[in-house]
C-alpha cells in the first residue's frame, strides 16, 4: 500500500513521510516533500491513505473526530513490508496528518528513528 520510496535524488538524511488522511491531497504531499527536502531531507513517502474517498468531503465535526480515530487505526494496520523497511532505515519518521500519528506511533517498537508529529517538527528535527 505504500507509495513508498520515490527517491528525491538528494543525499540528505533519510526521512519517511507518512500520510494517512483521505483529505491530504497529492498537492499537499508534494508541498510537504518539497519543504522537507529543502531542509536537507532525502524524503520518501509512505502513503497509507484509504482509496475511494472524496478528499473534498467535509463531514460534521463529530464525524470527523470519529474518522480520525478510525482512519488512524486502519492506517496503523496498513503498513506493508516496504513501508516498514523504510521506517526502520529512516532517521526521521514524520506524521504528515492526524491519522498518520497513530500509524507512526505504531512503529515505535521496531524503529529507532525520531518519530515526529507534523512537517514543521520534521523540519526542526533535520536542523
Amino acid at each position, binding site marked *: 500500500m505504500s507509495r513508498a520510496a520515490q527517491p528525491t535524488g538528494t543525499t540528505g538524511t533519510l526521512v519517511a513521510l507518512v500520510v494517512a488522511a483521505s483529505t491530504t491531497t497529492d498537492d499537499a504531499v508534494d508541498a510537504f516533500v518539497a519543504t522537507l527536502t529543502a531542509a536537507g531531507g532525502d524524503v520518501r513517502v509512505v502513503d497509507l491513505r484509504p482509496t475511494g474517498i472524496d478528499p473534498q468531503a467535509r463531514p460534521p465535526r463529530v464525524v470527523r473526530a470519529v474518522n*480520525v480515530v478510525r482512519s488512524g487505526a486502519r492506517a496503523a494496520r496498513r503498513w506493508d513490508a516496504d513501508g516498514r523497511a523504510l521506517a526502520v532505515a529512516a532517521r526521521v519518521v514524520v506524521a504528515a496528518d492526524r491519522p498518520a500519528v497513530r500509524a507512526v506511533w505504531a512503529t515505535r517498537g521496531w524503529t529507532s528513528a525520531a518519530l515526529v508529529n507534523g512537517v*514543521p517538527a520534521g523540519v526542526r528535527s533535520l536542523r
Partner: protein
Amino acid sequence: MTTPPHLLYLAWGFPPSRAGGVYRALATVNAFASAGWDVTVVTAQRETFERFTGADPSLEDRVAPGVEVVRIPFEWPAQETDIRRYSRLRATLPPVWSRLRRRRDTVSFPEPSYGPWRRPLTAAAQAVHERHPVDLTVATANPHVTFAAAHALHRSSGVPFVMDYRDAWRLDVFTGAVTAVPRSRVGRWESRLVAAAHEVWFVNEPLRAWHAEQYPSAAARMHVVENGWDPDLLTLPVPRTPHEGPGLRFAYLGTVTPKVPLDELLAGWQLALERGLVPAGSTLTLGGHLGYFAVPQGRLAEALADAAGSGVRYAGPVAKAEVSAFYAAADVLVLALGSGRYVTSGKVYEYVAAGRPVVAVHDPANATTAVLAEHPLVARVAAVTPDEVARALGEGATLARDVSPDATERLAVLATSLRRDRQLAPRVEALTEQVAR
C-alpha cells in the same frame, strides 16, 4: 542614596522567543530599567521557545544589562511533537485525550494549555518578592495566567499590579463577538482582576473603550499604551537601494496569516497591472512567515506561486536584522490586514518609520486606520475588494512619484511620535512617581 524601585515583570513569551508580542515585552522591561528600576522578569524556559515557537537567541542581547531573568518550566503537552512521548490514549483516541487534557488544563485557571502554569508562576513571583521586595508587578497577556499570578502577589503582599493586554480575553478582536459572558469563569476572573489592578493597559482605543464599558468602575485606571517601532531594530532615515529596470517596487512585510486578505490583494494587483494603474514592470514582494508556523502554509504558498508571473515574489521570512534592508528596497509599502475594529497591526508603526507611501488594504474601521490618520502618503481602500485594491495601488504609485519635502518632514515627525519608547514613557514616568511617594 535611595534604593531603586523593583519591578516584577511576568510574561510567558520573552526573548529568545520570536513571537510578535515579545517586542512589546522587551521594550517594557527596558523602559523601566532605563528609568532606574531594578527589573526581574519571570518567564518560561528557553527550551519552551526553542521547541515550540521558534527562538531568536540574538534577542536576548537586547535585554537591558542588569535585568534579572528567572526562567521556570512550562509544560505544553498539546504542542508535544515527539510521538514517542505520546500515551496510548493520545495516540489511539486523540479527541478524547484532547478533551481530557483541556479539562485538566483549566482546573486551576480557565485558560487551556496555560492554566497549569498558574501555580509555578505564582510561586516564582512570591519567591522573587521574598528575596527582593517588589514595588510593582506588570503582567502581560496573553496568556492571561500571568494576571492571576500578579493578583496573587497583590493579595498576599499588597504589591500593586498592571495588566497589559496585547489582545483581549473575552472579545474576538476580528469579529467583535464576545467569547465569554460575564457570568462565565473567564468573566468572573477578569472582573476580579480588573477590580484589583492598579492600571490596565490596552494597545488601542477601541479595546480600551470596550473594556471601559464592561468595567466602568475601572475606566479611570485604563490606559492606551500603543505599540510602536523599535529604534534599535530600524535605522532612520531608511535609505533607498538603487533600482534598475522599470516600474515601482511595492512590498508587504509581516506574517501572512489566513486573516490577511491575500486573495483580494493578489487579484487587485493583477487588475492594477492590466489597467495600467501601476507602471509596467512593477513588482510586489511579500516578506514574512506564511501562516503561524515556520513552515509555509500550503494554500498561501500556492496563491503566491500562481501570481509569480505577475511580478509577485515571496521573499520568505525576514530576520529582524534585515528589516531595514527590506524596506530600503521598497518604493511603496502595502499594509494588508484582517478586518475588525479592534485589530491593531504591529507592523504599521514600522511602515510609518520607513517613510514610504502606504497602500492600506484593510477594513477602514480597523484600529490601524487611526495610526495612519496623520500620514501624508496613504492610499486607502473603501472596501477590501479587488477593484478597490487596484485603485488604491494606482493611487500609491502616484504618491510615490512625487513625494514633497513637506510630506517627508511631516512623516518624520509622525515617525518620531510613534517610537515604542514614546508610547511607554508616560506610564513609566507616572508609575515611577507613584512608587516614589
